[in-house]
């Protein structure tokens, strides 16, 4: 089973071309940081409430992405809260994304090839060679969104990450999205870190939109 960081890095890749889907880079970094924090929470290394985030167990998990995030949170110490932790980890998220892509290639989920992004800088492409993980995530999210099934905590995290990344359009039809709007709102609130990810991504998108409209 993939961890949340690999899962969201995979979902942020376009199905056919292996390029990153349209999301501001800083927003993608917030989502990846959120994935790491939520994984640490489910592994009982950190705990949160509405005001604080605390490292409850600094012992390494054995996963170098999570352990880097955990060590960084531990170093930050003191009175942490969720937004500050999220932004603190987001600055390291590009490194996590690269590690996650490498793992996905090693697991033969992705293929690594040279590509060209836009017309400026050469970059790598990661065509998907095994889409079972993506299909499983879609099936799981459809199940909890289109029925009254209570999600388990891992489902909630996936939903928060996919919703914050504006990827639910890849999971549900436009009609289904409209029908489930209230339920999406309810379920994606169930994780406090997920709420912070949603707010931070919305702020970034709003800033980018405003800046773009100023240029135009």
């Amino acid at each position: 089973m993939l961890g949340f960081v690999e899962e969201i890095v995979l979902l942020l890749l376009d199905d056919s071309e292996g390029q990153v889907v349209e999301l501001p880079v800083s927003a993608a970094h917030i989502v990846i940081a959120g994935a790491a924090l939520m994984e640490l929470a489910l592994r009982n290394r950190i705990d949160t409430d509405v005001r604080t985030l605390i490292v409850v167990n600094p012992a390494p998990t054995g996963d170098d992405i999570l352990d880097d995030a955990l060590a960084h949170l531990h170093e930050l110490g003191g009175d942490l809260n969720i937004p500050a932790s999220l932004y603190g980890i987001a600055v390291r998220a590009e490194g996590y994304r690269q590690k996650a892509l490498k793992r996905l290639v090693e697991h033969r989920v992705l293929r690594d090839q040279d590509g060209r992004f836009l017309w400026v800088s050469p970059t790598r492409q990661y065509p998907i060679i095994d889409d079972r993980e993506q299909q499983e995530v879609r099936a799981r999210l459809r199940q909890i969104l289109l029925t009254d099934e209570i999600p388990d905590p891992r489902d909630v995290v996936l939903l928060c990450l996919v919703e914050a990344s504006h990827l639910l359009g890849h999971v549900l039809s436009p009609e289904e999205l409209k029908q489930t709007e209230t339920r999406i709102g309810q379920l994606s609130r169930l994780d406090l870190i997920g709420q912070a990810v949603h707010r931070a991504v919305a702020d970034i998108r709003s800033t980018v939109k405003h800046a773009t409209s100023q240029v135009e």
Partner: protein
Amino acid sequence: MEFAQEQTGDVLVVRLAGRLDSSAAPGAEQTFAGVLGGGTPHLAIDLTQLEYISSAGLRVLLIVAKKVQQAQGKVALCGLTPNVREIFSISGFDAIFSIQPDAAAAIAAVR
């Protein structure tokens, strides 16, 4: 955290006291798994003496709600203190659970 249980007719009343946080969550999850062992659960969880609940504690309750739903049972919470009610409200857990003012109402809600 303290955990007490009492059978009232066909309803199991569970009383939680103290703090339900990351240090208490694994034990609480295990204890709930024990009480949800078999049959169709009708569960009233009394939180009157619960001083604090963190995200780890909320996850325990989410797992309980899921297991009860899978077993086609019913669960209700009661006696939420202002602190606990605040985190339920902000996290949206008040939309997942039937929340009742006291144990008698919670028992009636799950019968």
